[in-house]
């Protein structure tokens, strides 16, 4: 296999095809539409199901149906679409069927805009729908990672009969970069035993999210939680950068993390002992790794393309061990490496304690001053 120059959304779609997806159901939305367009050509070529649904609600319930039928199925959408899908996501989780949702994030709330953002962190990581459930959320930072994690997403979804999100920043869906696709996987010969495919010679399979007797629902909630604990034990992924001698640490994910890694390289050249943890599984969150890290650095800088949604999870992990600072760009604006570099230097020189909540107040002051100056 060799690397090819591929557009993010096309590459992710082909990765899903090669991971064995047999049902794609979607609805056009910028910046995820190319995923749908790619599937519109590719799936019928392979004799697999493709359908442009009447809405994101229709699309995700089709995914739900196909998942119940025991095939790998997915949809790709963006924030406003994901909001509409919340209903089915909860049902998918409650029915314990595997499904994968790619969310190519854009600025919000509301109609927002179509520029890259990470403001759907809470929506995905905290579930989005009603009831107690725990989706897995993977956050790639490059086209290659997105390709790799799409395959991983299906494997995790099947392994735990779980809902898996891929949190793709809008940039990744739209950018072109060299990447390598995995080989085509064969399709399973038989449907999973739990799925619905006709009760020939066996008792009927019933897939439902109803447990009308509270004790039954309680047992189900316990099962879901225990499965989640198992996922937390086995599946946490993150990437470490220059942590050996780091005195300050960045925590950042996805494209923001990628920009930070570039700023980090420059800062190192300029003599700042900075390192980074880039969570790849936003859920389960690398709490333990961040907690350990917080015991040996003097300051942490959280960088996100939102108003500090992951920040709360970092705070929980750090538990007050070190001061935490925050920097974010919002509204669909991607921070520049120089901007982050400036933050790294500032944080490196800052020795003051920061009261809980003040990191956001201070960040807003800096950001508004920046906007005032007319800097990008």
């Amino acid at each position, binding site marked *: 296999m060799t690397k090819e120059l591929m557009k993010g959304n096309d590459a992710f779609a082909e990765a899903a095809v090669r991971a064995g997806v047999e049902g794609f159901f979607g609805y056009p939305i910028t910046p995820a539409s190319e995923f749908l367009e790619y599937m519109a050509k590719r799936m019928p070529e392979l004799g697999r199901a493709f359908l442009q649904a009447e809405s994101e609600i229709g699309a995700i319930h089709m995914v739900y*149906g*196909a998942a119940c039928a025991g095939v790998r199925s997915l949809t790709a959408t963006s924030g406003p679409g994901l909001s509409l899908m919340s209903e089915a996501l909860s049902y998918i989780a409650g029915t314990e069927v595997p499904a994968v949702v790619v969310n190519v994030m854009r600025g919000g709330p509301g109609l927002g805009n179509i520029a890259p953002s990470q403001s759907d962190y809470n929506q995905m990581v905290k579930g989005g729908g009603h009831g107690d459930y725990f989706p897995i959320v993977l956050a790639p930072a490059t086209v290659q990672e997105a390709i790799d994690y799409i395959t991983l997403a299906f494997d995790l979804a099947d392994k735990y009969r779980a809902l898996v999100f891929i949190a793709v920043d809008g940039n990744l869906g739209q950018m072109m970069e060299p990447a390598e696709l995995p080989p085509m996987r064969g399709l399973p010969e038989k449907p999973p035993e739990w799925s619905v495919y006709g009760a020939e*010679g066996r008792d009927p399979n019933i897939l439902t999210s109803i447990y009308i007797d509270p004790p039954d629902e309680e047992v189900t909630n316990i099962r879901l939680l225990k499965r989640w604990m198992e996922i937390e034990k086995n599946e946490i992924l993150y990437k470490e950068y220059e942590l050996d001698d780091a005195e300050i640490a960045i925590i950042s994910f996805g494209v923001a993390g990628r920009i930070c890694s570039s700023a980090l390289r420059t800062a190192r050249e300029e003599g700042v002992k900075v390192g980074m943890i880039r969570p790849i599984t936003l859920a389960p969150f690398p709490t333990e790794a961040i907690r350990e890290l917080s015991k040996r650095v003097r300051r942490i800088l959280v960088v996100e393309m939102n108003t500090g949604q992951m920040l709360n999870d970092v705070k929980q992990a750090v538990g007050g061990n070190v001061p935490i600072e925050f920097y974010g760009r919002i509204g669909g604006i991607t921070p520049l490496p120089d901007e982050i570099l400036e933050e790294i230097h500032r944080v490196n020189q800052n020795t003051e304690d920061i009261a809980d909540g003040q990191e956001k107040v201070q960040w807003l002051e800096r950001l508004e001053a920046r906007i005032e100056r007319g800097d990008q």
Partner: protein
Amino acid sequence: MIEMEVVYSRPESFTPTTTHYCPGCTHGTAHRLVAEVLDEMGIREKTIGVAPVGCSVFAYDYFNHDFVEAAHGRAPAMATGIKRVRPNNTVYTYQGDGDLASIGMAEIVHAAIRGENITVIFINNAIYGMTGGQMAPTTLPGMRTTSSPNGRDVEVMGYPVRMSEMLSTIDGTSYSVRRSLHNPANIRKSKKAIRRAFEVQERGMGFAMVELLSSCPTNLKFTPSEALNFIEEQMVPYYPLGDYKVAPEVKALKV
């Protein structure tokens, strides 16, 4: 000695489970007709049902075939997902009027628009049963419900919707008919329509829906028998029985 034979017995497509339906509720009748048709066609073992939200939410407990439970109104979308990846299975939805004609309007209309090769059994009893007798999209003008206590004022609450007529205007619809469950003759006609709707799917002829006028004695505050009279006297005039769309190839089907 007279030799006796069984001329009617409980369909094999039923489980032995007793239903939670109120005495005289024609959901049971509609279930039975579906089960009889699956038996007669010999397709139970490849059938996948999609249950709605509403009184028939537990339909999956009563049929002896694979079943999934949809979110409120989304059964046609879920059925689409299943049928598209398992085209050799028989897939049907069983939906009430709140489910199909209110919250699930987009899903049912678009399933018809796509000519989705599924069978839809639509129970119209003019009221929400499970939630306690609220106004349905099919509640008749002037009819009192718990959410239209002074009667449905169409100027304020809008008009009842006639789904069979509406879906008949869609090119993707192959079969759209209304029948009623209020007496033996109409029950027999209903069964024939259900049979045809499944035959349509078996032959890949596209979207088929049978609307069944049904009774809700509990929420209409009638005896079971009075509730059937209500169908005949009040509902049938507003929801005329008949074939609203039978595509030529469906008409040619020998059933």
